[in-house]
């Protein structure tokens, strides 16, 4: 059987998800030997045209250039995997989409009028194309990527985390940062799969893996943090960072500054 053709594509973002592939120092050469790598902009000058079996896409659509590239990727790819929180939920750069317009942002940071740059409001890729699978994280977890690749090579689907970080905290018997220390931890509403890394260091979860799918517990988290004495501004700033418009959407009217 011929090797599957893999493309590693990136749109606007920090490029941290493809960096995680380069960070698999012990597995990298073995990993890439299982595929024909048709595109890997950060790692290689080598490119091949034609069909792509599996496309990893990281980043948000933030320019017309990104959008054109994404549509081309969709046309040539059998399976698109949204790779990391930017591609899945829009991550940091989309956190204030519903609060300020692109024109206001351009004025604030660059002091220019709209149209001066090729810029679009940052959006996750599902806003524009059909997405087949996702690997969450900011950045993605290396072990999760390896497991996902291994599943795909064997004709299976990657594991999905349907339970929150709290479960991993309990398994590890870490003290609860909410009940014991009143920290604004997002563990109750965020996808597991990181083995509760932040709580293991005594730090509250900031939500980098995105919300548990179908989660409508934003309101409960919001109310709990309000009861703990946090202000609306601080709670919303926190909920928005990795879940931008989702947070605003779930909370309906509670999306003021």
């Amino acid at each position: 059987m011929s090797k599957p053709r893999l493309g590693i594509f990136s749109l606007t973002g920090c490029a941290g998800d493809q960096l995680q592939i380069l960070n698999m120092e012990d597995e990298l050469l073995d990993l890439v030997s299982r595929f024909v790598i048709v595109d890997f902009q950060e790692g290689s000058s080598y490119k091949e045209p034609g069909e792509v079996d599996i496309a990893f896409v990281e980043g948000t659509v933030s320019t017309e250039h990104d959008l054109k590239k994404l549509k081309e990727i969709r046309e040539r790819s059998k399976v698109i995997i949204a790779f990391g929180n930017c591609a899945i939920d829009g991550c940091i750069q989309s956190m204030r989409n519903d609060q300020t317009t692109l024109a206001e942002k351009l004025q604030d940071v660059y002091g220019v009028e709209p149209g001066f740059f090729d810029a679009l409001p940052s959006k996750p890729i599902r806003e524009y194309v059909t997405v087949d699978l996702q690997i969450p994280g900011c950045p993605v977890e290396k072990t999760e990527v390896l497991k996902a690749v291994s599943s795909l090579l064997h004709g299976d689907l990657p594991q999905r985390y349907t339970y929150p970080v709290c479960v991993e905290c309990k398994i590890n018997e870490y003290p609860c940062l909410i009940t014991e220390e009143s920290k604004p931890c997002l563990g109750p509403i965020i996808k597991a799969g990181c083995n509760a890394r932040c709580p293991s260091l005594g730090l509250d979860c900031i939500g980098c893996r995105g919300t548990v799918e179908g989660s409508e517990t934003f309101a409960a988290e919001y109310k709990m943090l309000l009861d703990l004495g946090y202000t609306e501004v601080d709670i919303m700033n926190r909920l928005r960072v990795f879940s931008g418009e989702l947070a605003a959407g779930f909370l309906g009217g509670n999306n003021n500054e």
Partner: protein
Amino acid sequence: MSKTITIDELTRVEGHGGIEVILEGNKVKDVKFNIFEGPRFFEHLIKTMQYDKVPDVTRRICAICTASHSLASIGAIENAFKVDSTPQTHRLRDLLIHGETIESHALHVFMLALPDFLGFPDAIHMSTAHLDAVEAALDLKKTGNMIHTALSGRDVHGMNERVGGFSKVPSEDALLEIKEQLLKVQPTTVLAVNLLSGFTLPDYNVSDNVLLALDSGAEFGYLGDHILTSDNERIPEKEYESLTNESVNRHSYAKFSSYKDRPFMVGALPRLYFNHGKLKGTAAELYNEHGGLLDFRNTISNNLAQAIELVHDVEHSVKVIDSLIDSGLENEGLVDFEVFESRGINAVEAPRGLLYHDYTFDGEGRITKSNIITPTAQNAYNIEKDTRVIAGNLADKPVDEVKHALEIMVRAYDPCISCSVHVAQIK
């Protein structure tokens, strides 16, 4: 007759950018270093955020320099609220930024830059002919990530370094394991210097080159509070705006940095220019042996400069680990302090050059205003200068040769295009 040379998308660089040169006959009419990366508006996004959440956001400007951003961010916050961190915290931060530099330089020197000089499209193809070198490079890169993971929590976008110290101090065992690994990979750093010293530096890229870098104090390193310029100035970090002089409306970009109306370079080459006398051990020996090959008027020398820094990074990291263990690691927690209306500025040397974070806070510690200037935003104007020089010198050569030369030049800066939050392309 006019001719346009276009590199649509630079590869083996971090982020998305291209180059455009317009020639009229053999004269360069215009050059553009295009950025396709969308603007991300970090200075806008962090407004109203509490100070202690800011580094978690601003570190995500860049994956390769995530710790440099978090340390610059933490430093600016600590400067604003006059926080005195402990000597142990200083040592741990010094180790963290050296770890990040090892990871970043190993990736750039071996996997992004070296394939050009050995004639391969990437390190993976290069491994067919040079498997030992590629495997050694990956092991070196891993060592940088081990430091990153032990101190910051993971290799990209960690969380453990905080305002006021480290949330959890690494164990002595973890540090000893890293030390053993550092000693194992030390020869690979020497290999990097020897490999790069063996190539003749292309001569199509020589021109006046203004240099800026942090004064690293008594020892060679990446932290400090004064900036040195090749005009023999020494400027406090809080006056950085006099050095970066951002202009918004220069031909095709927003916010190019210039110093006294001239482009300038930041990165490993300027750092060695100012601080090479502070190198110790093997790094000092290799600098004495090969430093003459560095041409400070040829930015492609930055590759060799990074290789020399790698030698320093590994030996220095061993020393820092020894001193941490000698003085006994303590889980000292975070330093207490009060917040008040204030502004704080901090500069650090990211692997690819000077980085500034500048924040203004209200009385409750929430951001009201900020400014972040990344190394690649500062280098962008200099990259255009070099583009002009190369295109002029090679105007009568075939287009592919010019393109290849331009790619080698841009790559030598180790640009981090997603990092250049200030630079964006006009439609």
